[in-house]
C-alpha cells in the first residue's frame, strides 16, 4: 500500500478492515460533532479567505470570488483522533494547489486559522499535489455550520483535527508553528495509519 493511496478513492467492495486505520472504528452513517467552542456565525457577505506570508496578505477571495474558482469533487475516508472513521464522504471545493498558487521559496509549513480562534499547522508538501481542499459542499449540500461551514479544510490523509472548520486564513511560514491541539499534547503530524495521536507516539 503506497502512502498516496491510503484511504483515497477506494470502492465499497474493499473490506472495511482494510480501510480502517489502527485503533479506529467505522461510525457508519453518523457524523459526530466535537465542539471545543461556539459555532461561528459568519455571514457569507462578510466571509473572505486569504493567504498570507509573515508580513503581507498575498491573495484574498470574497465568497463569490471563491465560488468562481475551479472546483473539484472528492470522495474520501476521514479519520477522527477520537477513534471514529467515516468512509466515502463526498465533498466539493477548491484544491489548495489553486489557492496557494506559487508560494515563496522559503515556505515549509502553513498555519490555518479559523473564525473562533482555532489553528492547526501542516507541512506545505502535505497540502499540495492534490492532497488538500477548501470545501464548502458536503454530500451535495452547503456545508452545515456545525461541520465547519461555510468552508473548512479537508486534509483526509491526516486526523480530522487538521481539517480546520470555519477556516479563513492560511499563513505561509518557513518554520513550524504548532496549532490549537498540537500545543496540547496532540501529535504534530497526525497520520492515522501510523496512529500519530499524541506527541511522543
Amino acid at each position: 500500500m503506497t502512502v498516496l493511496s491510503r484511504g483515497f478513492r477506494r470502492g465499497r467492495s474493499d473490506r472495511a478492515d482494510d480501510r480502517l486505520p489502527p485503533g479506529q472504528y467505522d461510525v457508519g452513517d453518523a457524523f459526530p460533532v466535537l465542539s471545543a467552542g461556539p459555532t461561528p456565525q459568519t455571514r457569507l457577505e462578510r466571509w473572505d479567505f486569504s493567504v498570507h506570508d509573515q508580513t503581507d496578505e498575498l491573495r484574498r477571495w470574497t465568497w463569490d470570488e471563491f465560488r468562481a474558482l475551479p472546483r473539484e469533487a472528492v470522495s474520501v475516508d476521514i479519520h477522527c483522533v477520537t477513534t471514529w472513521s467515516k468512509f466515502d464522504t463526498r465533498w466539493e471545493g477548491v484544491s489548495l494547489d489553486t489557492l496557494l498558487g506559487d508560494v515563496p521559496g522559503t515556505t515549509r509549513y502553513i498555519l490555518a486559522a479559523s473564525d473562533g480562534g482555532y489553528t492547526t499547522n501542516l507541512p506545505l508538501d502535505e497540502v499540495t499535489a492534490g492532497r488538500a481542499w477548501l470545501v464548502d459542499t458536503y454530500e451535495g449540500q452547503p456545508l452545515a455550520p456545525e461541520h465547519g461551514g461555510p468552508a473548512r479544510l479537508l486534509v483526509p490523509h491526516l486526523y480530522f483535527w487538521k481539517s480546520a472548520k470555519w477556516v479563513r486564513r492560511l499563513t505561509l511560514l518557513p518554520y513550524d508553528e504548532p496549532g490549537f491541539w498540537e500545543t496540547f499534547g496532540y501529535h504534530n503530524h497526525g497520520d492515522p495509519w501510523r496512529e500519530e495521536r499524541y506527541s511522543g507516539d
Partner: protein
Amino acid sequence: MTDPTGTVDITASRRLDGNAAAGMLAELFAVDVTTARSRCASCGTTSMLGAHHLYADAPALVLRCPSCTDVVLRYAIREGRILLDLRGAQLLAVLLPAASNESNGA
C-alpha cells in the same frame, strides 16, 4: 439547507457550565476550583470558573471565558497523565478551605 448562517447552533445546546468540570478537576486540585475566580488573559474580565463555558466533547475539556469566549483552560487525562493548560487564565484566585484559613489567621 440553503443558508448556512440561518441554522440552529447545535453546539450551543451541548455547552455546559463550568461546574460540570468539578469532578475531573478534582483529580488535580485539592480544593474545589469551580468557586475560584479567574481573570481572563484576553479580555480581563474576572468570573468564577464555575460560571465559565465548558465544552466537554472535544478531545479535551475546554473552558471558555463567559465574556469574550476565548479559551481559558484546557484539561485532559491521557495515558496516565493529567494535562492542564492555563494560558487563558491570567490570575486564578482560589479560596482556601476554612480550616487552613484559621491557622493563617490569629
